[in-house]
């Protein structure tokens, strides 16, 4: 049951932010909703309700580091889409490895820092 709530809340959050981006102009402004903390809002709310605010705060702290991976990911995607002839699907899915690498490095950093 908890997984169903998670699925519905996450789906609703992501869809809502994406929909706001769909109806906003100019496109560059609408693009900020591509970087909306939709998964974070749903997950932090559920974690705080289930395990407490202190645990949710720990998740938010990890998010700070992995957000750098998101910024690098969309930066590289923007450069490739503006200059190369690759499709957005290829660029946006292939680029996820950049986000993944930064997230792994952030995880290792937090582990070695003993937190």
């Amino acid at each position: 049951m908890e997984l169903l709530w998670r699925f519905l809340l996450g789906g609703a959050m992501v869809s809502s932010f994406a929909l706001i981006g769909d109806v906003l102009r100019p496109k560059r402004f609408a693009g900020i909703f591509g970087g909306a903390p939709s998964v974070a809002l749903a997950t932090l709310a559920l974690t705080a309700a289930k395990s407490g605010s202190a645990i949710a705060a720990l998740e938010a702290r990890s998010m700070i580091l992995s957000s750098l991976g998101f910024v690098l990911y969309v930066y590289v995607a923007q450069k490739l889409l503006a200059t190369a002839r690759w499709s957005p699907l290829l660029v946006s899915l292939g680029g996820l490895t950049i986000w993944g690498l930064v997230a792994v490095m952030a995880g290792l950093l937090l582990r070695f820092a003993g937190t």
Partner: protein
Amino acid sequence: MIPALDFSGLKEARWWQFAVRFFLGGAVTVCTGLIAERFGPVVGGLFLSFPAIFPATATLIERHETEKKSKAGINGRARGRKAAALDAAGAIFGGWGMLCFGCAAWLALPRYSTGLALALAAILWLIVSASLWWGGRHWGG
């Protein structure tokens, strides 16, 4: 240009495009929860910045723009990629805002109620992202 609402793009959208985004968002949130349960909040938290919106949105924007320009006899594919690049440029601002959201949530969650802490963090995300967009327009970023 002042940000404004334009609902014309919704007419071109198909129901399954909304369904895909809903499913992706739900799936990522479920996976994040399962990872946090198995490996703890420090590892699970890394997935809170997972790009759940950008890949689907950039692909949809390219498809809409390509169809629209092709009908007008213009090279639709190149225009579609340029429109997706503009979306990505905006997502960079959103990403910096997301980083600030994380900082605010980290500091506010232990001090305030969950609703207030997340509302403050979300407002900060919007202020930072929109300010960077505004600054980029005025100072050529």
